[in-house]
């Protein structure tokens, strides 16, 4: 990855990701948060393109930028209250959390800086979707199925949890 376009793209996208992420954390309005989150997700997706993971990039856009963001919007709307704006953005452990985050950053940064990676010279095959599809249904078929079951369970669980209990309805338990 030495072409000038790639390098330039990397720095550009990185800046976009970090900026969007900071905006997510710093926004006062929850709706703004979600919008910046979507921007961040799309930026990450373009980073995946840069990494030759086109399938993942599509998934990222569909699942994260699409579905998750929409769900977040719903969540925000369903729990919206007028007095939200007045209250403090951060809780009382701000300082300690800042310290922890800085140390985490220093630690990972320090470790990464000194690391020497084993870089394979090979390139990613062109048709990633075919490869991933074959792998998912052969070598990783059991995790794949488990993930499917997990999604189903999560779906049912979310419905049960979020279902409104009517005041007149008889309690089942």
């Amino acid at each position: 990855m030495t072409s000038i376009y790639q390098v330039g793209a990397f720095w550009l996208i990185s800046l976009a990701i970090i900026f969007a992420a900071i905006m997510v954390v710093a926004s006062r309005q929850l709706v703004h948060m979600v919008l910046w989150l979507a921007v961040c997700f799309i930026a990450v997706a373009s980073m995946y393109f840069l990494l030759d993971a086109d399938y993942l990039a599509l998934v990222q856009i569909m699942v994260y930028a699409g579905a998750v963001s929409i769900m977040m919007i719903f969540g925000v709307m369903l729990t919206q209250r007028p007095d939200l704006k007045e209250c403090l953005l951060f809780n009382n452990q701000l300082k300690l959390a800042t310290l922890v985050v800085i140390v985490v950053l220093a630690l990972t940064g320090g470790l990464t800086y000194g690391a020497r990676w084993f870089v394979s010279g090979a390139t990613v095959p062109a048709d990633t979707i075919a490869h991933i599809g074959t792998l998912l249904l052969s070598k990783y078929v059991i995790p794949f199925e488990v993930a499917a079951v997990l999604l189903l369970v999560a779906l049912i669980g979310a419905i049960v949890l979020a279902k409104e209990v009517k005041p007149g309805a008889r309690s089942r338990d």
Partner: protein
Amino acid sequence: MYHAWLVPLLPALSFAVISLLTKQWKWLSATISIGAMVSGFIIAAFIAVGVLQHPGLINHPLVYSLRWLSMPGFKVDAGILLDPLSAMMLFMVTLVASLIQIYSLGYMRGEKGFSVFFAYMSLFGASMLLLVAASNLLELFVAWEGVGVCSYMLIGFYNHKISAREAAKKAFVTTRIGDTGLLLGLLSLQLIFGTLNIADLAQKIPQFQNIPLLITVAVLFFLGPVGKSGQFPLHVWLPDAMEGPTPVSALIHAATMVVAGVYLVGRMLFMFASVPPVMELVAWVGGFTAIFAASIAITQREIKRILAYSTISQIGYMMLGLGVGSLSAGFFHLWTHAFFKALMFLGAGSVLIGLHHKADVWEMGGLIKKMPITAVTFVVGGLAISGIPPFAGFWSKGDILDATLASGHTVLFVIGSFTAFLTAFYIWRMIFLCFFGKENPENHPQESPLVMTIPLMILALFSTVAGLIGTPWWDVWGRYIHFGTYVPPVANWPLMIGDTLLGALGIYAAYLFYCKDREKTKALAARQWFGGRLYDVLYHKYYLDELYMWFNHSMVDGVARLMYLFDIYVVDGIVNGVGAFTVAAGEGLRVFQTGRLQNYALVFFLGVLAVGVLLAFTGPHATLFLGGVR
């Protein structure tokens, strides 16, 4: 013969089925239990035939086993060991148990816990059969404890009665003393020889040189049979065990379980025979127990208690036979005794049912008119135990006395002979008091139903003929069950005649005292003449129970009190201290439990950081940080 494992398994299954599924349906439960036992009997009969056809099994038992558990230096195989000895026991146990279960149908009719009773009986059968067939001493020990538990549960079967509960506890605790010894013996065998397989031990022990060590092991080992088989001084539980239902007394405390000790000694006779001093001990304990229990039996009044002491005494005989080195004589007596003692217990149970559980023999009398079958079968049992030819007891008891004399134990021979006289006397005292003489107008006895009398008749038949397979002229028994080389027996006429005379003399004396003399004046006079004191001593069983109680109160309670103080001040102090510390620590740490999610997450990440920093600077990749010092 390869299906012998089914014999213990069937009753075990029956126990499981009854206790889990069919407890609600009484007759179904009883049918399952009896069916399992009878099937076991049929298999055991085929096994017995098979063993008779293969004389090679005498010296080379058939063993088949599975690896039970295995760890370095310690392997246990569980399996089945078949030789004439175990085949005979399987046959005898299943036969007697089947008959007694059938009898229980009548005896336990209408009792509470009918199904539970049969479940316990099945479990007992399974344990006993496993004990008999076990090829490994650890397996045998498991079964040994299994019969102990069943015995405990069945003695305490009428658990609404305090006396039954106490008796159950007494039985359990007393046998436990012996079992501890047995367990120690087992462990030492494992330590010394590295195996508990009976067949392997039989190879290794006779070659073992360290005699003092082996003596210790054998004595420890012998404690188990002493406890289980009710030998002096651990016999005290057996008479109290009569609190259980009579079929239980017949099955467990007369015919089968109590002879488990004898069986164990017989099974391990190769070990005992290697250490002559222990053999002497076995013989003397047996002989002493025999005369000791017989002398107590003379004075007892309750019908089942007399039989209980008689059982102790007869088991003493068996031990005597084994102690003088005659496996065949000891086990021959075991075989015959199982039949006639089960017969007499069941007869006693029939009497008790007829008299609505009035147990004092002095309040009975003349029952032969109302309960002819019970009476006649009982008389057969009495003849058998007294050693009157051709009944079973004559042959087996004669064998034991013969073996005792032949091995040069004159004193033991005299004791044994005198015991034979006493045996005849006390049994016939009971018979005359119960079944003959004038009737007690307060009693309204009636004959028991067929389901009870038929087992009595079958047992009476066996009590009559079971001894005929071991006569000096046709010694099938000795040819198959013996220890060492087989010596064909010779008819010892003086001894046989003497035996018979002794038995007859005992019966005649009982007749004089308790039957001919209607008012029992002579008996009372004799009691006076013996001196009330001796009578009292005998009647109170040599005050052994009192002695044990005294020991318990003074010594054990004293130590216990010491322990109690220790417990209060030291143990409790530590425990309470730990508790107080925990409470204080909890109070202190409560501050940190805010219940707020993000606090927890923060602390969690602090922990992660701590680990990360630690690894980054001290771990194997410490040089990675910022390129390290490269």
